[in-house]
């Protein structure tokens, strides 16, 4: 019975990735990214031209981000099985992962405000658009802490066999490193470290979404094994 | 004794000397050696030396010379791919 709920939470990762991508890509057209160099009129035109698609896309992106909480809970349960004692990494991962979900939801709401009155002054649309992009791509900190907590927990696991394969621990540490350049978008409007750049948009986005798929596969196996053992 | 790849300490040490010498050579190329012909040939030398040094590091310091072949090939492929892309971009005239 318990395993069924656990698997439900684990599957929520897949639903999240699919719906989030659907909203981001074909609906809102936030993939490829807006350019930080684009002028107010240009950005306002985007919101005026595709108003309802952007609203719907953002509705879906915001709507599926709550599933991240369920997935974070699934990771928490796995880490709890790894850790002995008070379980400090369990709580670190839980709180950092939960904060991470907030930074998926809030940017969507800010962009929604831009799409809510597309005919307002273009300067204001530009401002809201900036805020949304910065909020989604700059806050690497919670994601990095979450990944490091998972990495340390997996590598410190003294169960035999370990709850998750050890490479998953190293994979999470690597993902943590990849997210860090995102924080530097504040300095650039062009080039690979701007929010539209390779190391802030493309690499972190692909890694972020594939991270869910990798974690889904290994957590699902671990949950089934734990269910059998119980 | 714990098993594992075990090239001698002496070998690692002379390779270290070789790496330092290669750095000096790279410095010379970076400061005019071979620039008489075309500066870009000395730049090419600098890049080639760097990747040869990288190869010594992964073959003998990481001990991939004695590792499963697939891992060694992965690093060899990385070296060739990155080095050749950098060289092509270096010679490209914008």
């Amino acid at each position: 019975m318990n395993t069924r709920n656990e698997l439900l939470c684990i599957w929520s990762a897949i639903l999240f990735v699919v719906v989030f991508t659907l909203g981001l890509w074909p609906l809102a057209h936030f993939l490829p990214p807006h350019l930080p160099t684009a002028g107010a009129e240009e950005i306002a035109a985007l919101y005026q031209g595709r108003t309802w698609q952007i609203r719907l896309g953002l509705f879906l992106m915001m709507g599926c981000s709550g599933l991240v909480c369920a997935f974070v809970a699934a990771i928490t349960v796995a880490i709890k099985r790894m850790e002995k004692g008070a379980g400090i990494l369990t709580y670190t991962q839980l709180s950092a992962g939960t904060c991470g979900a907030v930074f998926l939801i809030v940017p969507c709401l800010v962009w929604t405000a831009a799409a809510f009155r597309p005919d307002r002054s273009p300067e204001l649309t530009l401002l809201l658009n900036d805020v949304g992009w910065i909020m989604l791509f700059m806050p690497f900190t919670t994601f990095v802490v979450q990944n490091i907590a998972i990495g340390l927990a997996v590598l410190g696991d003294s169960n035999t066999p370990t709850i998750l394969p050890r490479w998953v621990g190293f994979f999470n540490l690597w993902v943590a490193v990849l997210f860090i350049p995102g924080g530097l978008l504040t300095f650039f409007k062009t080039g690979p470290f701007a929010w539209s750049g390779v190391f802030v948009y493309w690499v972190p986005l692909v890694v972020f979404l594939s991270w869910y798929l990798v974690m889904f596969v290994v957590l699902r196996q671990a949950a089934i094994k734990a269910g059998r053992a119980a | 004794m714990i098993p594992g790849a075990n090239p001698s300490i002496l070998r690692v040490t002379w390779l270290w000397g070789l790496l330092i010498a290669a750095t000096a050579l790279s410095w010379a190329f970076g400061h005019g050696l071979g620039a008489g012909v075309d500066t870009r040939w000395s730049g090419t030398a600098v890049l080639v030396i760097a990747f040869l040094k990288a190869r010594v590091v992964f073959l003998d310091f990481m001990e991939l010379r004695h590792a499963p072949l697939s891992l060694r090939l992965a690093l060899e492929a990385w070296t060739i791919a990155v080095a050749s892309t950098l060289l092509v971009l270096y010679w490209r005239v914008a």
Partner: protein
Amino acid sequence: MTHATNEPARHLPGEAGVWVFILGDLLMFAALFITFAYYRSNDVASFIESQHALNQRCGALNTIFMLTSSWCVAIAVQVARVGKTRAARRWLVGGMACAVCFVVVKIFEYQEKIAAGITLTSNDFFMYYYMLTGLHLMHVLLGLGVLIFLWRSLYAPVSHTSVRTLESGACFWHMVDLLWIVLFALLYMLR
């Protein structure tokens, strides 16, 4: 997992999982190197002009520190395998000392640049200079933590597991060395 008494000819250094991190990191830096070279090829004159402001002596000195550190760590692994933990710890201290020197030189170099008014946003060349060396420095600091962890772990008598951990950490450190070798050529030496 278990090592047979008759060791096969091929030996995977470190645990398999650490290679996920090392290969992944090499991939990320490959992308950074290529991006740098691409933007350089679009604006060679300005990149070479900016490069004159770099302190090449610092770069060369740091290459020597990095190579020497890597060498110390390689020897530490070898002596640990034959059970000489005290000697292995001493070699690791040598490796850490070189790493600390690297960091000190780097800080001096940054401070020199900042004093000359050169920052992350000065131009494209310096953006790459700070980003590439900064990301590398982050790896050096991470590696220094790894070396300290290995040094502490060698207070216990060696076992197969502890040597494997030592190899994993050493391979990470050699990767940091390898990346610096390429960075030195790309940023400081290439004309």
